[in-house]
């Protein structure tokens, strides 16, 4: 009898789970929370703290969505995904949005049927080596043992790089970043390759960061950004413009400190439209007029999030570089809010 009771209970749960339909926004509203796929753990980008609260740069994208839709950044359910399970989790509706340092490529966009809504971090694949190895360029790595994280684009880039430069190497594929670092630090590989941001983030946590160098070659373009399922443009728009709102806010100098001040009305119509005091941009997205204002108040603008999670003041210590505003010589550029 116990079996049937359990099955019954489970069946109720199963049916209660509901179905993923085309209108993701309605589903999200009905559920009262956004299901957001994140990495199981990457320092600075997504990791749970001692209280189990997820923190990090990628996590902030989801928090911004929570602020835009529910005016509450905690209304996000974080689902940890591995490099292998992430796409299925998104395709099957297990998550509504994937914010997990995922590289935007044509095949993922077209063949795997996803929509990348933008780029929240411009990255490139680099190498880290120990200083005493005496290597100054990735072209000197002929015959080296290289640690890579599997399930990513990095192993393909690596194969191409060594092939093009006519060099041999010994790949050591590893499942997680933490494991790969442990191997690299123990000297089981000469070099570790992954996104340069990840390398910098990891180096910051070493006991002796000064003894490791990140080689100057960046062997690939890795635009990392949030993605959603193809076929629900309304939901894609919400995610896209939530990200853009954070970027635009930094450009216009709106911060979590002065947003309330600016929301009373300014002479800049773009700021007014963004903060919802002018026009009806929120309604076009089927959101509250104060959606962008909530994002900035509760999560912060792009620069604030960057600085507090992975910026130079944090142990990760990443420079803005390509991720500076276009006005500062970077690539972060939001289309106009009008």
């Amino acid at each position, binding site marked *: 009898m116990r079996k049937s009771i359990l099955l019954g209970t489970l069946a109720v749960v199963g049916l209660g789970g509901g179905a993923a339909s085309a209108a993701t926004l309605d589903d999200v509203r009905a559920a009262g929370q956004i299901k957001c796929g994140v990495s199981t753990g990457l320092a600075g980008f997504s990791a749970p703290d001692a209280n189990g609260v997820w923190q990090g740069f990628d996590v902030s994208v989801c928090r911004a969505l929570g602020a835009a839709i529910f005016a509450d950044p905690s209304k996000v359910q974080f689902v940890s995904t591995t490099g292998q399970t992430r796409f299925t989790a998104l395709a099957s509706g297990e998550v509504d949005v994937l914010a997990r340092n995922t590289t935007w490529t044509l095949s993922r966009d077209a063949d795997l049927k996803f929509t990348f809504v933008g780029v929240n971090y411009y990255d490139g694949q680099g190498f880290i080596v120990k200083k005493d190895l005496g290597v100054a360029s990735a072209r000197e790595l002929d*015959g080296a043992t290289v640690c890579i994280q599997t399930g990513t684009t990095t192993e393909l880039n690596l194969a191409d790089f060594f092939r093009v430069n006519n060099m041999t190497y010994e790949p050591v594929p590893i499942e997680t970043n933490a494991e790969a670092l442990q191997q690299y630090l*123990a000297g089981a590989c000469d070099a570790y390759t992954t996104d340069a941001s990840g390398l910098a983030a990891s180096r910051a946590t070493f006991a002796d960061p000064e003894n490791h160098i990140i080689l100057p070659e960046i062997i690939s373009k890795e635009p990392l950004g949030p993605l959603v399922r193809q076929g629900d443009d309304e939901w894609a728009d919400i995610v896209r413009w939530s990200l853009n709102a954070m970027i635009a806010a930094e450009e216009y100098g709106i911060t979590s400190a002065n947003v309330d001040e600016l929301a009373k009305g300014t002479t800049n119509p773009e700021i007014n439209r963004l903060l919802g005091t002018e026009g009806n941009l929120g309604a076009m997205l089927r959101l509250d007029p104060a959606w962008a204002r909530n994002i900035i108040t509760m999560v912060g603008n792009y620069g604030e999030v960057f600085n507090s999670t992975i910026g130079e003041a944090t142990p990760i210590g990443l420079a803005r570089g390509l991720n500076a505003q276009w006005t500062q010589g970077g690539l972060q550029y939001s289309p106009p809010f009008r």
Partner: protein
Amino acid sequence: MAIFSDSTRGGFRLGMLIYDTRYRSLTIQVGFLFLAMAGAAWLVDNTVENLRALGKDFNYGFLGTRAGYDINQRFVAYSSDSTHGQALLVGLLNTLFLAAIACALATVVGVLAGIGRLSRNWIVARLMTVYIETFRNIPVLLWIIVMMAIMTEAMPAPSAFRGEDATASMILWDSVAITNRGVYIPEPLFTRGLGDLDIGVFLVSLDLVAVLIVGAAGIYAHLIITRHAEAVQNATGTRPATWWKSLAVLLLPLLALLWALGFHPGWPELKGFNFQGGIYMRNSLIAMWLALSVYTGAFIAEIVRAGILAVSRGQTEAARALGLRPGPTTRLVILPQALRVIIPPLISQYLNITKNTSLALAVGYMDLRSTLGGITLNQTGRELEAMMLMMLIYLVLSLIISAAMNLYNRSVRLKER
């Protein structure tokens, strides 16, 4: 016939399908089959519909496309230009190799530990108990990770072997290097080698084939010699000395062949970033090998212990009473009986090892699961095809292993008369 006419007297009624015991089993079976087929149809129908909704199709064409990734340990030629199908083959061979060496070592470890636990030596028996309990009660995944950590943390890096003030050195007269990237052992090289034979999928080393043929011939000759000696012993009562003949037929042709092929060992040497030359056993392989064998060894130890305890003391005493010495007692009386108890659970342990090789991804050993079910699946997005193919391969492997072991089991089983 009489019974049959009894029931047909009143003609066939529908109710008889349920109430008549002769038809009922048929009804139940048909009902069961119908349910099973309906379930299968439902699954297939759902799959077709889901695939259409996602705009995907179901085909194995991706196996013929360029893989684009490299694999470190490969028994057949493979590069990033090879196809996903070839990557699958490389992974499969890696799985089989790991399973084979892990089964062998697990058996050795298990037998030693099982006997050790029965030892009259207090400290040995206690140590073996601690070993068995510790390893049986902690998940194998944790052991794999820990073994890998021991390999990478406790062994010296190749750079420690370099320079005047090297902190590590090679062992066994500079022939074996144990580093945290793996173990380098000397390899056999042939200056006048016979080359390779291409049999389509991979190359077969003719040198190896020649050595195996000559070795097998030597063993066959040795068997003939002992059989002859036995015949002489049965006829005359004295056994002619055979050891020097056996030694000669076993070794001389082999040595001659090796000399003819120009055999010399290739020593591992530190060149550039890594050791070069020699056979390189990666630490992922060694970690998996040790973890699987030591973990499963603990289970096999219990099986062996139970098997030995299952042979009653009277058997030993009877053998002694017949005048058998301890050696032949074990070999002729205890072992054959203990094996009957040991073999069936041992088969399932071998199956477990084979299935547990799929955890290799945790340490980056490129087995079937890491190639086909890992990188290939990820790069092509063909999870349905890749997973189903992978399950099929594991299933076939398991069936082959259990069939082979069952054949062996049949040969040692008690022949009841």
